[in-house]
């Protein structure tokens, strides 16, 4: 198994020359952003679309993942002739800071030559977006044609619109929220506690050790994965069916298919993700509350914005339910912003934004075009 903290080779890396100021008051020195691009930037840099990834996503938006070999995570949406058409648009996707696919995060080396581990500063969604804005500066992109994101990617899109209102002409936010709810925070805390309860976590200082906190990280992923699916979706996919056996074992093996599936998801995840990154990114999401950043009123975060917004929710998404999108829409209406909103019907819960959905394709295409 390759060492977890080895940066994958493929992506170009942008080095931010200035120290990156963070919401915590700390700064991040020598910050690096790994990114992928698709399509060609127009001479006037007017055709750039930034796609922001979700919690465990990465910059491999429309190209194969170097560790898993799987196709890009949104290849069905981004590419030549796809709803986000790389024949027309220059599409950028960057690994967020705090993550582990080439951008600066807890697995990166600190100035003393050792991995940061828990010495990495606690970051926020706005800090991630600061990193992305620095990358846009580096690429010579003053104003994005569109910023697009689902889930945590949607939080980044909203944060960009609220804090750098001139940087994007269109803001597309899918299955997301303007603040983490108590329930959202609660599920993340279960995941973090699972990681920190793993003896191999070793206060985060495991990079040189034989054992990684894979068991804790796998449990965190299993718990989170349930929140990405709907009850009906789980029932349809697994029901109470047994896994490779005809009868219950009267033991604690994965008797049920759904158990086997979750274990597989959990262990697969540990091959491509750093446990400390999971702690830092979930923390950033829990701290997210755009209204709080802007004096307590969400509409004030978007006052005077000239951007066009589009929000999409899914009727079976109980992680970031439609009410959260509506809350944002109401604030944008109050701010006088141009906003569209549609709740799409899909059986698969929060994950629907990553799956086949013709209506979503048409909305994305129509809005981003």
């Amino acid at each position, binding site marked *: 198994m390759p060492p977890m903290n080895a940066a994958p080779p493929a992506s170009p890396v942008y080095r931010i020359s200035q120290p990156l100021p963070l919401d915590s008051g700390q700064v991040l020195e020598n910050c690096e952003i790994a990114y992928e691009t698709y399509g060609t930037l127009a001479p006037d840099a007017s055709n750039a679309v930034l796609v922001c990834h979700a919690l465990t996503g990465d910059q491999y938006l429309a190209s194969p993942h170097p560790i898993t070999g799987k196709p890009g995570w949104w290849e069905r949406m981004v590419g030549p002739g796809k709803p986000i058409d790389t024949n027309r648009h220059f599409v950028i996707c960057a690994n967020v800071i705090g993550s582990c696919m080439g951008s600066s995060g807890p697995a990166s080396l600190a100035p003393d030559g050792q991995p940061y581990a828990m010495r990495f500063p606690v970051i926020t969604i706005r800090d991630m977006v600061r990193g992305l804005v620095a990358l846009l500066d580096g690429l010579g992109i003053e104003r994005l044609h569109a910023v697009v994101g689902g889930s945590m990617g949607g939080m980044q899109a909203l944060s960009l619109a609220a804090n750098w209102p001139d940087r994007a002409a269109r803001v597309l936010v899918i299955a997301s929220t303007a603040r983490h709810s108590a329930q959202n925070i609660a599920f993340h805390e279960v995941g973090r506690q699972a990681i920190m309860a793993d003896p191999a976590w070793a206060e985060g200082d495991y990079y040189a050790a034989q054992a990684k906190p894979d068991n804790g990280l796998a449990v965190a992923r299993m718990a989170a994965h349930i929140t990405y699916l709907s009850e009906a979706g789980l029932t349809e996919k697994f029901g109470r069916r047994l896994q490779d056996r005809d009868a219950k074992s009267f033991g604690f093996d994965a008797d049920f298919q759904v158990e086997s599936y979750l274990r597989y998801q959990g262990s697969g995840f540990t091959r491509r993700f750093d446990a400390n990154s999971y702690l830092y990114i979930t923390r950033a999401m829990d701290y997210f509350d755009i209204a709080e950043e802007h004096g307590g009123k969400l509409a004030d975060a978007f006052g005077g914005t000239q951007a066009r917004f589009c929000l999409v929710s899914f009727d079976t998404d109980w992680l970031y339910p439609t009410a959260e999108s509506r809350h944002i*829409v*109401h604030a944008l*209406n109050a701010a006088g912003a141009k906003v*569209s909103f*549609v709740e*799409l019907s899909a059986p698969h819960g929060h994950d629907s934004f990553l799956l086949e959905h013709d209506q979503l394709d048409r*909305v994305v295409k129509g809005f981003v075009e």
Partner: protein
Amino acid sequence: MTGLRPDLAAIAAHVAPGSRVLDIGCGDGALMAVLEAQSGCDARGMELDGALVERCVSRGLSVVQGDANLDLANYPDKAFDYAILSQTLQTATRPDLMLDELLRVGRRAFVSFPNFAHWRTRLALLLGGRMPVTRALPVSWYETQNIHHVTVEDFRELARLKGAKVERAWFFSNEKQIGAPAANWRAEFAVFKLSR
């Protein structure tokens, strides 16, 4: 005008160019598209039916999926030059409160509705003794979304009660504009322009 329904065409012809417009119950966005393309308006829409919203968004219009009975409350006072309610008033839970909201979010309002006092409707009820199913009201009583049928005279009375000024009215029968005399008998559809 570009194949719009006659009531929508009358509205489109009387919205000042460059206005800010909210089209409540915008359907597939036909009126909004004309207002944006031909009058340079900043048009926003609200529509309950998600499939119609998707069509609007995919043609580049700014439309919010929402319930006009509830979601108008989120718009600031006088946010729009015009609030448009086309053939939706009679579906409202409380048409009187919706009219208040219309005149709160818009400086002016256009309201169009099918006239229940049209002679065909009257005859159907008088002679047939059954809830009318007519050209203008083609859906049977148990399926129709029109839960608050209204006549031209009822609407004038509601406007008066609400302190709204009728700036102008248009009447239609058989897809054509007709004159105001005896409109409560002759009009299948009516459009009112109001202010307060």
